[in-house]
């Protein structure tokens, strides 16, 4: 199956990182680890990656970055306990346990 998404790593510097004219043309998906998903085989997406000096990643490489961050967050969440606290109280205090993210091809 031809890939429909491409990935890069780029740090969001704020204003001008993604402009209205860019998000009007392509769909961005920001992911943990400064990983960004944009359409593959798309001129506007390629130009944006070039603009932000994005480092291209294969889907597997991007998945590894995202998974490593989520694994660390899950470990931190598991280790943060208060004596006598119920599961519901823990979720109220910390938010839900981070869940896995599976990237698309």
């Amino acid at each position: 199956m031809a890939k429909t998404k491409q990935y890069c790593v780029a740090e969001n510097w704020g204003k001008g990182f993604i402009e209205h004219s860019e998000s009007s043309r392509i769909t961005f998906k920001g992911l943990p680890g400064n990983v960004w998903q944009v359409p593959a085989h798309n001129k506007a997406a390629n130009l944006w990656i070039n603009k932000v000096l994005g480092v291209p990643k294969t889907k597997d490489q991007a998945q590894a970055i995202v998974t490593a961050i989520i694994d660390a967050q899950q470990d931190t969440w598991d280790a943060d306990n208060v004596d006598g606290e119920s599961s519901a109280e823990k979720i109220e205090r910390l938010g839900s346990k981070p869940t896995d993210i599976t990237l698309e091809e």
Partner: protein
Amino acid sequence: MPDYKVVHGTKVQNFASDPPAPSEGQVWYNTTTNTSKYFFVNLGAWATGNAMNTARATLGGVGTQTAALAFGGRTPPSSDSDLTETYNGTNWTEVNDLNTLRRLPEGAGTQTAALAFGGRGIPPDFPPDVLHDNTETWNGTNWTEVNDLNTGRYYMAGCGASNTAALAFGGHDPGGRSDKTETWNGTNWTEVNNLNKGIDQLAGTGTNTAALAIGGDVNPNDKTLLWNGTNWTEVNDLNTGRKNAGAAGITTSALASGGGGTPSIVANTETWNGTNWTEVGDLNAAISKAAGAGTTAAGLSFGGNNPPDDCTAATEEFTSGPTTSTLGSE
């Protein structure tokens, strides 16, 4: 493909400056800047803005895209916050803190005249768990404690044009999901007619006489309720039901963005025209429990949780409406 003249009945025209009132779809050549330009009505798109100084979720927020106020919330991993920041359309600046630490505060007003009310305090900041009824007014420099809500609660919605006219509705009170609505007249909160049922984790926008209650942690979660100053009435549903969305605007022109919860935090954005919700451009990164401010023409989303469930300092700016763009610039 038909050429431009077939479609528009004229060739692309040259102008020394951009035409003052172009028609939708019109293309022209600007001979001063040597650029080809076109005009269209943008349904809505988000751009990144500069980040807040402190990442946080479940914060309160009011104001406009160029003059916003962020206050309170949860900072990682689980601290209640009293931090306040102002946004000038470019940068966030730390200003004086709230008097009471709180996550999940609601707000009303503007960057220079705001109201913060309700919220939650949990251990270790508040042993035991506290449902805040505190209300504070912001005069552009300092927060001052004023009269409390009748019912302390969190996960509610709030809105209002100033720090002298606000509305608080829904949320989670000691009895569970709350249907209570209260109005603020600048001095006191008064109980008025309830929501149709208890709803928490809902979004709200508007004024104390014309407001919208959007979504929530109920089933179904796509409902919209309209407040006319006296009663709540159910109106047309969101396209994507959700809890913890960000909201901005008024009852005839509103914006709902992001929301949801683990594992389904969403980036969906919808605009409300007074009758129906329409899907427009998504946030660039999915966000839940963010604050919203501004209008459908110029909206703002700041802070919140992004997947998997991490507090963010990110800011996004929403713009819709008539737009002149340069061909070949992207």
